[in-house]
């Protein structure tokens, strides 16, 4: 890698050849302001706020479009640069509505930040401002052209990342505007990123509009659990309302760069679904479930299960785990049911779908966030154990007397729906741990309310073998428990887990000792950006 040594405002810094002034400035600890520049998008050089002076050159240059050269001295703190920035700020604001108090971007708006930092406090523009009506452009976005500064990030995101020409720059001169082409709407599933990268409040998310002010939110680093890509996200938690109000992309160059898909962006809605399972329930052979206590439910389940194990043996129980569970929970599942209780029938359903391939971003086909982790930990049939399809068949035919589902779902997820329905009706004991009701939980004898990704701490191993942490964001109202706690409770009631409650971090330590693929990993090593499995170190590549 060829490098060049340059100075930015007198600070010497060595950067890769071809680095622009904005990035060189970043490295030197100097802010070169920018609106249109985004490291993940083509350089357009249109906003002109990044104008820099180069020692010995008469004209200012655009910092985004100018690579630094050996020995170059970039100056950003001169009167000339200050004046140019002030000019650009004044120009950008002449038609801007200055409606920050009611703008969703207020508080995280680059234009607002720069205005406070360096903009003129007064405008000398005394004419009527150009105004445009608000417009629904599809992609769950509302376009407010009054606030638009024409940085073209939205256009280039659609063009370069999604590969779609759904939004374009139209008109010319001061009547230039961003719009959808010929009445079309944005339909690509990456459109939500536009709301993230719009440096002003021109394109805002319909989902987030008027729901909260950015400064009220506590961002919690998380990982999307809607496919096996494992996009890094930031969950916007509203502490006062105890509510998640949005999910935005979190940069991770090894996984999702700066982007997430709109499915993941909307991934917090199910967390607040009104039909969440919020209390343990049992129905004891009668239709309709009655609430019960955790203690009562676990004890009753353990009693039935023990009886079945004694009467029919270990092969009479089937455990349908899930690759939606965290690595920690997969580890507990395997330890308790397969290794300690000796139940060989252990499996999890695959959830394949066609992947959605965009120009620079793929939404993966595997809908499970932790397939790779579940496999590495051994969520699979033991010796002479049955796989999922055989388990369902055996249960339908009376060979299996108890089924434990660690996540429910539609019947066809677990095999031929007719067979699955028969299996669920047939067994003496059907236990379902889940956060949401499903055709499986509707048939359960015991429902144990687990929680969503946002209410528990844990790690997921993505399709490339990268282990990443998702932090606990909050606790939903109700009598739910984290799945890792439920598993330990059950294990203890069954006499298969003798330790006190371990937290996710401690469970992960045990997991790393037990499974060589995870060796060397712990929560500190994983950090905010995750780390590859030992076995995956070679094939974890960018993207």
């Amino acid at each position: 890698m060829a490098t060049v040594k340059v100075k930015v405002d007198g600070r010497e810094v060595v950067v890769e050849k071809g680095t622009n002034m904005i990035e060189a400035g970043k490295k030197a600890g100097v802010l070169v302001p920018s609106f249109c520049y985004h490291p993940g998008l083509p350089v357009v050089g249109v906003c002109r706020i990044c104008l820099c002076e180069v020692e010995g050159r008469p004209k200012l240059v655009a910092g985004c479009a100018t690579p630094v050269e050996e020995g170059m001295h970039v100056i950003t703190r001169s009167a000339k640069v200050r004046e140019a920035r002030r000019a650009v700020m004044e120009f950008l604001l002449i038609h801007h509505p200055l409606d920050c108090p009611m703008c969703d971007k207020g508080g995280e708006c680059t234009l607002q930040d720069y205005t406070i930092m360096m903009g003129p406090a007064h405008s000398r523009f005394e004419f009527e401002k150009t105004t445009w009506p608000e417009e629904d452009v599809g992609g769950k976005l509302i376009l407010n052209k009054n606030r638009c500064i024409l940085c073209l990030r939205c256009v280039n995101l659609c063009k370069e990342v999604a590969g779609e020409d759904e939004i374009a720059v139209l008109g010319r001169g001061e009547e230039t505007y961003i719009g959808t082409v010929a009445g079309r709407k944005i339909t690509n599933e990456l459109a939500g990123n536009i709301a993230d990268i719009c440096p002003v409040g021109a394109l805002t998310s319909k989902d987030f509009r008027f729901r909260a002010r950015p400064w009220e939110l506590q961002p919690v680093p998380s990982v999307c659990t809607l496919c096996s890509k494992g996009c890094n996200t930031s969950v916007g938690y509203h502490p006062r309302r105890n509510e998640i109000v949005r999910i935005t992309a979190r940069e991770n160059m090894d996984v999702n760069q700066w982007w997430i898909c709109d499915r993941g962006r909307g991934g917090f809605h199910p967390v607040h679904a009104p039909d969440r399972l919020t209390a343990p329930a049992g129905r004891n052979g009668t239709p309709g479930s009655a609430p019960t206590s955790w203690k009562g439910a676990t004890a009753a389940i353990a009693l039935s299960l023990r009886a079945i194990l004694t009467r029919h043996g270990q092969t009479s129980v089937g455990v349908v785990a899930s690759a939606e569970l965290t690595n920690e929970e997969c580890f507990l599942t395997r330890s308790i049911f397969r290794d300690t209780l000796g139940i060989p029938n252990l499996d999890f359903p695959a959830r394949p779908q066609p992947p959605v391939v965009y120009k620079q971003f793929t939404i993966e086909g595997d809908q499970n966030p932790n397939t790779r982790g579940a496999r590495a930990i051994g969520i699979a049939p033991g010796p002479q154990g049955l796989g999922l399809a055989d388990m369902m068949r055996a249960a339908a035919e009376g060979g299996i007397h108890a089924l434990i589902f660690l996540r429910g779902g539609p019947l066809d997820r677990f095999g031929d729906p007719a067979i699955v329905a028969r299996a669920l009706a047939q067994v003496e004991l059907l236990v379902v741990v889940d956060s949401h009701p499903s055709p499986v939980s509707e048939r359960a004898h015991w429902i144990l309310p687990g929680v969503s990704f946002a209410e528990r701490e844990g790690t997921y191993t993505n399709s490339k073998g990268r282990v990443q942490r998702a932090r606990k964001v909050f606790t939903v109202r109700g009598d739910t428990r984290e799945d890792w706690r439920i598993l330990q409770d059950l294990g203890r009631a069954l006499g298969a887990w003798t330790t006190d409650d371990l937290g996710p971090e401690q469970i992960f330590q045990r997991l790393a000792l037990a499974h060589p693929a995870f060796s060397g990993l712990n929560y500190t090593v994983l950090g905010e950006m995750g780390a590859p499995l030992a076995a995956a170190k070679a094939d974890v590549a960018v993207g």
Partner: protein
Amino acid sequence: MSANGRVLMATVDLPGSHTLDVYRKHGGYEALATALSKQPDEIIDVVKRSGLRGRGGAGFPTGTKWGFVPKSTEKPKYMCVNADESEPGAFKDRLLCAKDPHQVLEGTLIGSYAIGARRAYIYIRGEFAEEARILQAAIDEARAAGLVGKNILKSGYDCEVTIYLGAGAYICGEETGLIESIEGKRGEPRLKPPFPALVGLFGCPTVVNNVETLACVPHIVKRGWEWFAAIGPERNTGPKLYGLSGHVNRPGVYEAPMGIPLRTLIDEYGGGVPGGRPIKGVIPGGASCPVLTGEEIDIPMDFDSLTRAGSLFGTGTPVVMDDTTCMVRAAWITARFFAHESCGQCTPCREGCGWLQRLLWKIETGNGVERDLDVLLSVTDQIEGNTICALGDAAAWPARGFAKKYRDEFLRHIREKRCPIGSGSLH
């Protein structure tokens, strides 16, 4: 030199001047034959030595521009002829396209040969539909005569010439805007570097030359660089077309050497100002050039002299304004043009041009205050030098020029709260 002493306009008055027959009768395409018998480098060298500077406004040395095109590249190279003549006041290229298309074509072919291009595009503004038709007929005629297409004049050199009609944007006359437009994109100038000589049309090395620039080339090849370099002042050589308009008795396109005094051009070629009225100002080279006052017009019409005088030679097309002209209104009309033609891509030009236009209209309509004049000058400072292309400068310079040189007239508008001159006659 022809009987009428003209070079570029030698035959334009003849009937059928646009035909191959007439062009050949007067020595047409002899230069092409000569050029094809030489090495491309020799042609570039001759053009360099001739001192020919681009006639599109910037005055960049043509031979030097050709020399920037890399010799060793796998990529195809392109010649683009800029016939997007759209600046208010400029109409000289139109005459060449209509009356002597073969001269333009011969220059294009020689230029293409010199840079190693096998395809040339003539980008002509959409409003020049008739000129485009004439050019196309000339290309067809030339192709039939073996002058365009495969194996030109049996030299083994191939060159296709394609006409591309613009869609009405001044900005497409900016060379990279022109390239974008040919590529089928919005006419928006590109960030430079890279310059077109390295990364131009379709990402390949490209030269963009003005129509008149290329029309000079056959004459340089035929008569030698020494002949060309001997015309006009030092560093500003050659014959030149001057498009004279505004308050003159005989507006039109005239050929004269570079460096002809502006007053001579107005008085002798243009027949002076109607009614012998005094000249209040002259925009020397198209709307982007800062205005000269009536006292400043004893000046040679060439690149260096006008730059020294704080204005620009531009395309060498003076607009003469007599004392009935309202300079605020003239400034507003100019500003309105640039605001309308700004591509809208970069902030200072997009926002600044509209602001200038509003300020000037405010003053012209008697609603201005003195502060507006300061804001006006400050806005021009804020645009200049901060934009992607020169359109921003082109809008800022004339506004500043008018406001500074006719400050008293601007102030009269403000104090009298009306236009003291009347609506003027420049619309």
